[in-house]
C-alpha cells in the first residue's frame, strides 16, 4: 500500500515538475505576468510533493533515502527546488524560475531513469551521520546549482550587452548586477554548506573507519570542488572578482560538482558509490 503511494507520488512529482517547467517556459516566451504566478504555484506544489515522496521513501526504507542513484538525484532536485523557493522568498530575480524549474525537471528525469528499488542499507552507512552528512552536502549542491543557473544567465546577458545585438534574451533576463549578486549569495550559502558537509563527512569517517580522510575518489573530488569554490570566494572578497569570470567559475565548479556526484560513482568507484 505504502509502496504504491510511493510509486504514484514519484510519478506525480515528475508530472507536476514537467508542468511547472512547461508553464515557466511559456511565460519566458510570452512574458505574461499571470503565467508566472501560476508557474510559481505549480513549482511550490512540486516542491511539496517532492518532500512527501522523500518522506514516504523514508517510512518504507527506515533510513534516509539518499543512498541509491535514484534517491540521491531526487534529493538533489528537491534541494534545488527548495533552495530556489527559499531564495525567492527574499529576492526576486527576473525569469530565474524558468532556468531552475527546467534544471530540477531534468534531474527528476534522470532520477526516473534510475532503478527505484529499495536496497538494504550497507552496515557502514547505518548511522545518524548519514542524513547529516549526505543531507547537508546535497543541500549545498542545491545552492551551487542555483549559482550555476545564475552563471549561465549572466553569460547570456553579458554577451548581448557586449555584442550590442539585442536579441531574445536581453529583455527577458535580469540586469547583470542582479545576476552577480545572485551568484554571490548562492555561493556563500552553498560554500558554507559544502564545508559543513565535508567536515561532517570526515568526522563520520573517523568514527566508521578510524581516519578522518582516506582519499576515496569522492573525497578527492569533493576537495577539488571545494577548492574551486574557495578560490572564487576568496577572489571575490579580496580583489572583487565578479561578472564574467565569477559566472564562468560557477559553471566550471558546478561541473566538478556533477562529476563528484556521478562521474566518481561510475568511473572511479570507492566507498561512496551508490547501491547499484
Amino acid at each position: 500500500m505504502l509502496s504504491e503511494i510511493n510509486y504514484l507520488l514519484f510519478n506525480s512529482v515528475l508530472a507536476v515538475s514537467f508542468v511547472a517547467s512547461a508553464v515557466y517556459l511559456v511565460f519566458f516566451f510570452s512574458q505574461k505576468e499571470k503565467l508566472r504566478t501560476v508557474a510559481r504555484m505549480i513549482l511550490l506544489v512540486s516542491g511539496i510533493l517532492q518532500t512527501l515522496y522523500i518522506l514516504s521513501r523514508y517510512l518504507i526504507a527506515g533510513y534516509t533515502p539518499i543512498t541509491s542513484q535514484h534517491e540521491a538525484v531526487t534529493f538533489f532536485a528537491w534541494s534545488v527546488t527548495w533552495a530556489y523557493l527559499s531564495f525567492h522568498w527574499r529576492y526576486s530575480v527576473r525569469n530565474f524560475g524558468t532556468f531552475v524549474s527546467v534544471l530540477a525537471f531534468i534531474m527528476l528525469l534522470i532520477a526516473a531513469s534510475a532503478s527505484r528499488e529499495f536496497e538494504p542499507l550497507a552496515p557502514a552507512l547505518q548511522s545518524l551521520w548519514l542524513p547529516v552528512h549526505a543531507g547537508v552536502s546535497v543541500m549545498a549542491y542545491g545552492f551551487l546549482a542555483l549559482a550555476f543557473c545564475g552563471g549561465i544567465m549572466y553569460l547570456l546577458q553579458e554577451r548581448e550587452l557586449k555584442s550590442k545585438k539585442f536579441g531574445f534574451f536581453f529583455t527577458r533576463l535580469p540586469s547583470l548586477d542582479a545576476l552577480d549578486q545572485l551568484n554571490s549569495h548562492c555561493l556563500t550559502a552553498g560554500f558554507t554548506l559544502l564545508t559543513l558537509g565535508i567536515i561532517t563527512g570526515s568526522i563520520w569517517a573517523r568514527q566508521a573507519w578510524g581516519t578522518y580522510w582516506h582519499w576515496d575518489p569522492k573525497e578527492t573530488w569533493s576537495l577539488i570542488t571545494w577548492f574551486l569554490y574557495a578560490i572564487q570566494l576568496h577572489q571575490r572578497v579580496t580583489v572583487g572578482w565578479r561578472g564574467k569570470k565569477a559566472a564562468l567559475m560557477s559553471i566550471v565548479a558546478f561541473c566538478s560538482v556533477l562529476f563528484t556526484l556521478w562521474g566518481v560513482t561510475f568511473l572511479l568507484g570507492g566507498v561512496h558509490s551508490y547501491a547499484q
Partner: protein
Amino acid sequence: MPSETILLLGVNHKNTPLEVREKLALSSGYEEPLQALAGIDGLREYYLLSTCNRVEILVSARDGEAVEKELAGFLFGDALSPDQYEKYLYCHRNEEAIHHLFMVAASLDSMIVGESQILGQLKEAYRWSSDKKCTGPILNKLLHKAFSVAKRVRSETLIGSSAVSISYAAIELAKKIFGSLDNKKVLLIGAGEMAELAAEHLVGNGAKDVVVANRTLERALDLAKRFNGRAVGLDELFEQLEQVDIIVSSTGAPGIILHKEDVKPLMRNRRNKPLFFIDIAVPRDLDPALNDLDNVYLYDIDDLSNVVEMNKAERDKEAVKASRIVDEEALKFKGWLAGLAITPTITALRDKGNKISRMELERTLPRLKNLTPKERKSVEKMAGAIVSRLLHDPVIFLKSENCKDQSELKVDIFRSVFDLEKKE
C-alpha cells in the same frame, strides 16, 4: 431627444509645426483657459490638455456645430485666422473623439510612441478640470476609461518597454548593467548640451552624484551647479574614473582621449565594479577597444542609434496590438454612451406605466370594500406586474444592440408611440 455630442478639437505635433503650437493661447497653465471655456454657450462638460506636443479640448456639448466654431476660435485666439488654422486643426466627433482620446492616453499618438509621460500629463489635466468642476458624468467616465485603457495597453503589450530615444536607450542599457541607477555616480566629460541632456535623464532615473570634467572649468562649474555636483579639471580624469559608474563623454576633441590601456589598471582599484561608457561625441572620444575589457561596457552614438532603431521595429509590432485594444475599448464605450442616451426614455416610460397603474388602482380599490389588507396588496401587486411585463419587451427592444446605431431615430419613434412628452 438629441443625445450629447462629444467633441475633441486640437492640434498636435503631426500636422502642426512648433512655431504654430507655440502661439496657441493655452500655453500658460490650465486655470485661465478653463475659466474662459466656461463662457462658451452650449458646453456641458469640458476638459483641456496642453503638452509640448499637443493642445486638445474635449467637450460634451448640446449643439455640436456651433460649439465647434467657437472652440476653434478659442483655441487659436487671435494668433491665426480661420483659413490659416484650418489645415492644422483636427476635429473629432463622438466615436472618433473617444477613439482619439484613447489613442492619446495609450501613447499611440505620441511623438515617441509608447513613452509614459503622456498618461501623467493627461491625469494632471483631468485633475485641473475636475477640480474646477468642469467635468460631469460623461467626461468623468470617459477619462477614467481612457486611463484604464492606457493601463491595459501597458500591461498587455510591450509597447512601453522599448527605448526609442538615445537617452532612453542609454538609461535602459544602464539599467541592464546596474540593475537600478539609484546612487550611481555620473561623470560628464565635456559640458555640452548633449551631456546636459543625458545627465538630466540619468539623474531623473535615480543617479546621484554628478561630476563634470571640462577643459574650461567655468563651464564645468555652471553645469555642475545645475545638478548639485562637482567640477573637476581634465587632468583629474583618472582619479574620478575610480569613483564613478557611468561616464558620458561629449568633448570636441579631435582624437581619442581615453584609451584601453588607461582604464585597464583602474579596474583593480575599482574592485572590478562595472563601468558604463557612453560616447556621444563625434568624432569619438573613447577607444572602441574599451568594450573588450571585463566589466566595461562602451556604447557610442551609433550603437545607441542602433538600439533605438531596433526598438522601433519591435515597438511597431506592439503598436498594432495596442490599437486593437483601443478599438475594442472605444466600441465598448460607444455602447455605454448609447445606453446613456436611452436611459431617460426608459425612465419616462416606466414612470408613465407606474402612473397609469396607480391611477387605475385609486379608481378601483375604493369600490372593492370587502378586501382584506392582504388581498389589497395582491391586487396592487398584480397591477404593477401587468405594467412591467407589458413594458418589458419594448425596453428590451430599445436596449438591444442592433438598434444602438440609430438610437436617435429609434428613441424618437418610441417616444411618439408611447406619447412621452419631449423633455430633456
